[in-house]
């Protein structure tokens, strides 16, 4: 394999997965964009380090970046806690003014005509293709450092992310944990932007976590998945950019990552958009079906004989979309809850019991609202319309017990129990 390609491949993969792991904690804290701000705010530190010392020494630049990033991080925190400015204002303010200051300093260097700006350019646009063997060593060291750091401080990071007050209450050194986390984040960003550039760094921090979160609720699984997504994007992106001439690596890594991100959010089971949509539709169907059973049951209750209703009859009693009603009747027929009689439909024994249940829940809930929550009898119907589809048998039992086996609802209609 081409050695340059291999270097880029290893470098970007290490970087992307390390950044994804730190990014996951920021994601869970809802502070993803702080990473974006830090990426921009590194610039003045880098340029000052370049001006003051040996520009070609990458360690020197990294230290400069680290200091600048820490100042920016604590600056954002200070503005957020001490002023009335909204937190995203603090983030964008620090981001843009630090970056502007960096640009100003950089133009000083350009004017003075000191060469070797290549070291600086990397911090702006990222140069994945220029990864050297030294870089690979630095990246590997960083990746190990990050993994060890996250491993050692795992418990602390976890508590800091989910409940900082609790963490201090049980005596954890929260400022130290936060400082360690910030240093690790700034380090990951410092090295990361040399590969993908200032703007796209945020993607390496944020997108893997957003994708991983759609698949799992457990933190260790999420960290692992985020790292895997990031690494696969890095590998795929590097391949694509090497296959098409002139193509930059960073943007391709980010594009592949975006594919993972948006793909996960749409297709992931349970939490994905499609799964949610499917559940919502199933719920809607169930609601319409239960409403039809309730309607038939109430008509029987009124006329005291078994009734046959056409779809037109039903629509005249209760406003429904005709299409949805027809679908519901078809499903109910298949579930043997209604039977077709000529041009109309009637309840089966099974359907009658189901309709009775819905009516019972409706009336029980209405009674609960008036009796226990003191609501007026003319205000309770809409709420009961919803709850009748939600209440589980367990809650029903509790309601019956709480209300003392009631006979009548607030409108003096009987509450229909199942005949023993």
């Amino acid at each position, binding site marked *: 394999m081409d050695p340059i390609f291999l270097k880029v491949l290893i470098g970007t993969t290490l970087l992307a997965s390390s950044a994804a792991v730190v990014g996951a904690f920021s994601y869970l804290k809802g502070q993803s964009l702080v990473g974006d701000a830090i990426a921009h705010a590194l610039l003045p530190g880098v340029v000052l380090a370049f001006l003051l010392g040996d520009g070609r020494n990458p360690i020197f630049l990294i230290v400069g970046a680290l200091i600048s990033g820490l100042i920016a991080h604590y600056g954002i925190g200070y503005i957020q806690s001490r002023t009335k400015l909204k937190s995203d204002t603090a983030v964008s*303010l620090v981001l843009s*003014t630090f*970056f502007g200051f960096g640009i100003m300093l950089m133009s000083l260097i350009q004017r003075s005509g000191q060469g070797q700006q290549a070291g600086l350019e990397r911090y702006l646009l990222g140069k994945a293709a220029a990864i050297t063997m030294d870089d690979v060593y630095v990246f590997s060291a960083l990746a190990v450092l990050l993994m060890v750091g996250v491993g050692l401080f795992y418990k602390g990071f976890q508590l800091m992310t989910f409940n900082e007050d609790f963490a201090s209450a049980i005596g954890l050194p929260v400022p130290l944990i936060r400082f360690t986390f910030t240093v690790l984040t700034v380090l990951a960003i410092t090295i990361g932007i040399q590969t993908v550039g200032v703007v796209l760094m945020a993607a390496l921090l944020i997108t893997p976590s957003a994708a991983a979160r759609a698949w799992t609720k457990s933190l260790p699984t999420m960290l692992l998945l985020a790292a895997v997504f990031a690494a696969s994007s890095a590998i795929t992106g590097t391949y694509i950019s090497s296959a098409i001439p002139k193509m930059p690596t960073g943007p391709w890594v980010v594009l592949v990552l975006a594919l993972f991100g948006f793909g996960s959010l749409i297709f992931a089971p349970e939490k994905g958009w499609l799964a949610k949509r499917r559940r919502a539709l199933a719920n809607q169907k169930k609601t319409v079906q239960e409403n039809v059973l309730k309607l038939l049951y109430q008509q029987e209750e009124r006329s005291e004989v078994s009734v046959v209703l056409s779809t037109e009859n039903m629509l005249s009693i209760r406003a429904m979309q005709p299409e949805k009603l027809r679908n519901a009747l078809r499903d109910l027929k298949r579930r043997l809850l209604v039977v077709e009689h000529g041009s109309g439909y009637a309840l089966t024994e099974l359907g009658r019991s189901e309709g009775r249940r819905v009516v019972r829940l409706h009336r029980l809930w209405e009674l609960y609202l008036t009796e226990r929550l003191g609501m007026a009898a003319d205000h309770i119907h809409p709420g009961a319309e919803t709850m009748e589809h939600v209440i589980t048998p367990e809650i029903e039992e509790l309601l019956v017990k709480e209300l003392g086996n009631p006979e009548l609802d607030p409108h003096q209609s009987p509450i229909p129990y199942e005949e023993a």
Partner: protein
Amino acid sequence: MTMVGDAISHAVLPGIAIAYWLSQSRASLWMFFGAAIVGVGATIIIEVLRKKLRVQSDASIGMTFTSLFALGVVLITYWSDSVDLDQECVLYGEIAYVPFNLWLIDGVSYGPIALWSSGILLLVVLLYIIIGYKGLKMTSFNEDYAAVLGIAAGLWNLSLMSMVSLATVVSFESVGAILVVALLVAPAATAYLFIQRLKPLLIASASIGLIGALGGYGLSKVLETSIAGSIATVLGALFLIALIIHSLLARKTSKYAMEA
């Protein structure tokens, strides 16, 4: 909402690239349409991610603008033979070249193009604020209340975002997408430390913006540095001074409160 502005200023890149490729011209009007469409699209994606897919609001912004920016860079590289744009131009435009880019009709110069487009932008923004003052005020402070009053909050948000896109596109050639954010945010944030009423706030932030621009330009003349960078630096310094004064005042009042 300021980070949305920042995000949009990056997200418009593919729109600008496509408009440039289709029209083969650097005319601001085309680029504006391209940018505006993608900008509004980005706003919608961010909202969908946040509300429908329950992604953290920070993360939905970050995911959206980085993806679009990456797409923009890839498109620009792909068309690099026919599209004379680069991502540096988006990151930090160069205001110093503005005087050389003249608007010529039949050989008669009408001054720098950027001067005209910025001037028109200023008029449009002023007009927008005067016409939309009430709707904007209500929507900015309390979206729900605005909705109750029958103000189309969504529409105002969208129009505000479009204005941000417009301001971004017009300015990005001269100051770059990131420094635009300094211009958008810093003056208002500085003024907001001391003033919370809307009208004085608008006037104060416009004045601070002006001071920052003039001061930054002066600084860049003295040090011979990037004009846009210097303006952002001065704006940042003004905010820092204001923040220090604000903190000192806050300490004083809390001391009195303790003694009282």
